[in-house]
């Protein structure tokens, strides 16, 4: 059981630089009012799930601005034109994106960045350079059953032509490039493809969460760029996994905090039986439990990010713990948040439903709490 804490900074490596970025992101995002924009985009489609169009809603201009601010390239190595910051910084931003339930390909692009960094090849660097130039990148490996590791991919590469289908790819409609795991005779590799390329068919899923888009990539002999040699694909994924998990957990930590604050606020203002409902302990105590859950997840997210940047040996353990905690927090805060809002929280008009669905979605991404703990068991 590794508990090495010696090499890690006490303050999680969170300094002035990170704080400035976090505050700037807060201001920038609150000016954008992403939920209002989302509301406008889905207006008149109270039943958008059943519409013909399966589109992901997002503000393209806001994304361009964010790339211009350098946020999407913050973890891209300097040699590829980025700021070469670590996961601690990326997490500071991801938490704000979650807190705003913002539809954006930022999270996927940051995750792709950490995955590409671990590949450390000229081909991967070329994709990193495109990120620095403003490209949005999605990544995936899942089969139709939602497998949690690329070794189970159903995509096969022969002479660098890919066939098969990758499911559950996040932000697919927003992406310029998609990175996919593919099996070759000599082992697992990763490929990059332009989303508009020949033999690449993108099919959007009809998903519950209105703040994201997701889809599958159907490949019929599509030509891709091989990013790592066969066999090197698994180790690259495994060493990036702590970052991938922690970024999802950070999104949850932000959204859970929103749910907590919104529910506490509602409990102070909504009056029943001549009192604000927060007076009643059957309301008050579960809100406190939401805070406890959210705080534990947040602390683990910071610890995991710090370990990834400063103490790689302990990074996987802490990332599994962070996602384990965050997944359960997502389920719990979504559940209590909606329940304690009463009927209003169940309506289409309420922002609570938007966060509820975002939390539900993130809860399952890369595996829920049980899945993380079952992976953790092998480490202890």
């Amino acid at each position, binding site marked *: 059981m590794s508990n090495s804490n010696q090499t890690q900074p006490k303050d999680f490596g969170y300094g002035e630089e990170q704080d400035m970025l976090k505050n700037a992101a807060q201001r920038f995002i609150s000016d954008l009012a992403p939920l209002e924009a989302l509301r406008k985009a889905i207006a008149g489609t109270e039943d958008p799930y059943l519409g013909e169009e399966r589109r992901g809603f997002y503000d393209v201009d806001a994304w361009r601005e964010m790339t211009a601010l350098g946020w999407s390239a913050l973890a891209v190595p300097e040699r590829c034109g980025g700021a070469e910051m670590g996961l601690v910084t990326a997490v500071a931003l991801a938490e704000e994106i979650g807190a705003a339930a913002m539809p954006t390909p930022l999270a996927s692009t940051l995750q792709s960045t950490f995955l590409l960094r671990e590949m450390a090849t000229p081909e991967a660097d070329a994709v990193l350079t495109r990120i620095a130039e403003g490209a949005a990148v999605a990544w995936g490996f899942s089969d139709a059953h939602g497998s949690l590791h690329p070794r189970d991919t159903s995509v096969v590469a022969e002479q660098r032509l890919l066939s098969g289908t990758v499911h559950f790819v996040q932000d697919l409609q927003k992406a310029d490039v998609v990175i996919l795991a593919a099996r070759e005779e000599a082992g697992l590799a990763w490929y990059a493809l332009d989303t508009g390329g020949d033999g690449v068919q993108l099919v959007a899923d009809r998903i519950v969460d209105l703040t994201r888009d997701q889809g599958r990539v159907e490949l019929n002999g599509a030509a891709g760029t091989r990013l790592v040699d066969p066999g090197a694909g698994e180790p690259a994924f495994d060493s990036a996994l702590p970052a991938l998990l922690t970024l999802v957990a950070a999104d949850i930590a932000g959204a859970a905090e929103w749910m907590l604050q919104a529910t506490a606020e509602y409990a102070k203002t909504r009056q029943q039986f001549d009192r604000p409902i927060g007076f009643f302990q059957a309301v008050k105590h579960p809100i406190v439990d939401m*805070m406890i859950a959210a705080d534990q997840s947040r602390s683990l997210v910071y610890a995991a990010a710090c370990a990834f940047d400063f103490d790689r040996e302990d990074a996987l353990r802490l990332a599994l713990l962070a996602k384990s905690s965050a997944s359960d927090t997502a389920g719990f805060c979504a559940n209590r948040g909606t329940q304690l809002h009463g009927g209003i929280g169940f309506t289409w008009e309420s922002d609570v439903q938007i966060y509820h669905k975002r939390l539900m979605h993130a809860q399952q991404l890369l595996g829920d709490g049980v899945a993380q703990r079952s992976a953790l068991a092998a480490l202890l």
Partner: protein
Amino acid sequence: MALRDEYTTPEAFRTYCREWLEANRPEPTRMPLPQAAYEVTLPEHRDYLVAWQRKCYEAGLIATDVSPEYGGHGFDDFQMIASNEVRRAGVPYFINWIGLGMTAPTLLAHGTEEQKRTYLPPIFTGDDIWCQGFSEPGAGSDLASLSTRAEKDGDNWVVNGSKVWTSLGSLASWMLLLARTDRDNKYGGITYFICSMREQGVTVRPIHKMTGESGFNEVFLEDVVVPDHQRIDAVGAGWQVAMSTLTSERGAAKGVGAVPSSESPMDNIEALIALAKTTMRHGRPVWDDAVLRDRILKIYERTVAVMQNGRRMGVPALNGGAMRIPLQSKLVGSELGQELHQVAMSVLGPAASLYVGDEHARADGKWALGYMNTYTGTISGGSSEIQRNILGERVLGLPKTK
């Protein structure tokens, strides 16, 4: 040379503490010590633990940051280092945990110069053991409804009433006493005193716990004389002072001594994992049972989270306000400990029935005993329900429950 001139950097002091604890770890007692200082009653244990506390005090591990005028070692901010090393070393607890954890911070914040000079040094050495006389038969969670009376008589106060659940009451020389000095003012009618346990009119009667142990007591106060110079802060200011004592009790304030427990939460969860790996069921370790293992790992996750919460307290930009995490620590720590022991019962299965003294009991019955004693944490010092009220009201601003 004073210790503080000898060890000027945190690293040097940490190394010193670690090496000292390694070299001075005491021999175990003949009769095993209770799991926590709450249950100490035997003179043999008391003498052993007082000697141990004195040794640690003299070595600088207690009152590390307290000024030398009050018997402290005068370091700047090294108590945390000493306390962490004590916890890490797994050495016996300090018997005077109420004196160190409650009296000392209360006196430092509210005591007179005279009181600090008189009472603090013997708290640190362990010569004077303290107890806390807050709860009464009619005043538990609603502490401010207490009815023990103190009436002014010249330069003295005369106290009548009774206290209950008084931990260490049978060993203590002094009590932190809350008494009513004004019947018509619930909160503003309480005054805080230092009461001698050796005074005429003080009767201590032990109460037994569900574990079969004792440690807490009924204390009857009959015309007990308390000199006015043993009053802490103003007449009627007792409630505010009590709140600061309780903040210390709940671990939400910086202590001046070390922690009372010699078991860290990380030790407990690691012991539980080891138990699951070595307890066989259906010919396989319980650890192989996916359902139980998931419950264990959920506790492991929360244990690590609590430790990382502690780390986050030190990072103002990330801690969500100064009191948000500290006010959670007692609630979360005690409930986590309780759930951990409940899971241990499931791991043990039918063997969970075996108690201390049974030759087949795992770890000499410490799991069952420990399980029962976790209710100390969830009930005393403000129950978990009261903690949730406090968090909802003070941190989240929800309307007050009466």
